[in-house]
């Protein structure tokens, strides 16, 4: 059984596939954006809710059917930044990390019941020079391995902690900045790591696609075979070792090149890219895949949703793709939940 959380502009949905057919559950949280999903160390589910009117919050469930708001979710102190949205939920050992807009990190040591701010990032010395991009000032991707934590902040860059969050340092060497003043701003869009070699990290950035082989100490461009280097998510499938991303024409025209919506994959760690397999629509498809809307199950399953409300899946590491026969509102988040 594969269970996928689909977070949209207008509620959340759950897709389950146990016999080759996708079954749809929902909508959950009618009227609310579902901006991220997570699974706690003890196996409960979390959904991050946002709204055009009301404040963001985490909701919790043991069965994906009955949900209750987390009583002590991420919240900045009274004199701190404003919490506008919860962008990502990441399991880190026995704890959980949440990345938010305005950019910051929160941590839970009790299975997601209570959360505390991570001061080393939230009060980083470079913070006065952080400024939002089009997508806001958001901490949107988190990677971790042992005591190391990587956090991607849009329009700012990548931060790494080597001491389990006690301190963070910037790691953008080799990346083209998208802003120079008042300090270089690096608009990272997506991060993925190789669990077998956590020093190998891939980065979909505003300025292109990059790879690091030294834990983000340095980055090199890897764009051979891509029709365009702009895009948002990048994902790694552990079973095949393949990488996946969805190129968009440019920052000024965030649509598939020539209307050809395709995932691209790399079989060699990013040295070369090609259209991933078969099954794509021959008709033009002018939609976008947002940074939180692609996930893998590390068993050959890759799943992404579009701003046009379509969900695409592969179960064979990108050899063949098919479209889920359900339409959704604008898709903000796609997460494998089980």
């Amino acid at each position, binding site marked *: 059984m594969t269970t996928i959380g689909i977070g949209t502009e207008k509620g959340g949905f759950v897709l389950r596939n146990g016999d080759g057919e996708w079954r749809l559950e929902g909508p*959950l949280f*009618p*009227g609310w954006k579902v901006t991220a999903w997570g699974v706690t160390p003890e196996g409960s589910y979390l959904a991050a809710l946002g709204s055009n*009117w*009301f*404040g*963001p*919050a985490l909701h919790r469930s043991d069965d994906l059917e009955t949900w209750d708001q987390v009583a002590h979710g991420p919240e900045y102190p009274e004199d701190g930044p404003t919490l506008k949205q919860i962008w990502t939920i990441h399991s880190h050992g026995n704890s959980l990390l949440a990345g938010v807009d305005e950019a910051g990190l929160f941590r839970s040591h009790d299975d997601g019941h209570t959360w505390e701010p991570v001061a080393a990032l939230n009060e980083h010395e470079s913070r006065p020079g952080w400024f939002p991009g089009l997508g806001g000032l958001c901490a949107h991707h988190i990677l971790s391995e042992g005591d190391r934590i990587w956090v991607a902040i849009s329009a700012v860059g990548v931060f790494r902690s080597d001491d389990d969050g006690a301190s963070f340092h910037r790691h953008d060497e080799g990346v083209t900045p998208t802003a120079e003043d008042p300090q270089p701003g690096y608009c990272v869009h997506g991060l993925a790591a190789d669990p077998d070699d956590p020093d190998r990290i891939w980065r979909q950035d505003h300025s292109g696609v990059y790879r690091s082989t030294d834990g983000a100490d340095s980055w090199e461009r890897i764009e051979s075979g891509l029709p365009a280097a702009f895009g948002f998510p990048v994902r790694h499938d552990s079973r095949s070792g393949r990488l996946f991303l969805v190129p968009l024409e440019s920052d000024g025209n965030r649509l598939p090149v020539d209307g050809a919506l395709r995932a691209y994959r790399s079989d060699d760690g990013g040295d070369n890219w090609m259209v991933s397999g078969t099954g794509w629509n021959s008709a033009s498809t002018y939609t976008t895949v947002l940074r939180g809307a692609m996930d893998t199950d590390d068993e050959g399953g890759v799943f992404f949703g579009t701003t046009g409300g379509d969900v695409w899946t592969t179960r064979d590491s990108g050899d063949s793709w098919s479209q889920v026969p359900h339409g959704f509102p604008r898709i903000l988040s796609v997460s494998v939940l089980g």
Partner: protein
Amino acid sequence: MAQVRLSRVLGPVVGDRLTLEVPGSTVGEVVAALLDELPQLRVHLFDQTGTLRPHVLCVVDDEAVRMEDPDMAATTVEFLHAVSGG
């Protein structure tokens, strides 16, 4: 006692308790009682400084207010969402 009415959008937060009676005769007392009863509402109606969120409308006895005066008399308090969005 005062009556509180909540936007239907808040259903996933408060369940079917969109209309409830709480003790109090001023806006300050009614809101304090409301948040005692439904503490999960606080982050949705107010930011961390206690300021009413900008797209939340508070209507006290048919008058839209920004809750500047907690001593304002209140028999009904409604929290609505702005007519915006698509």
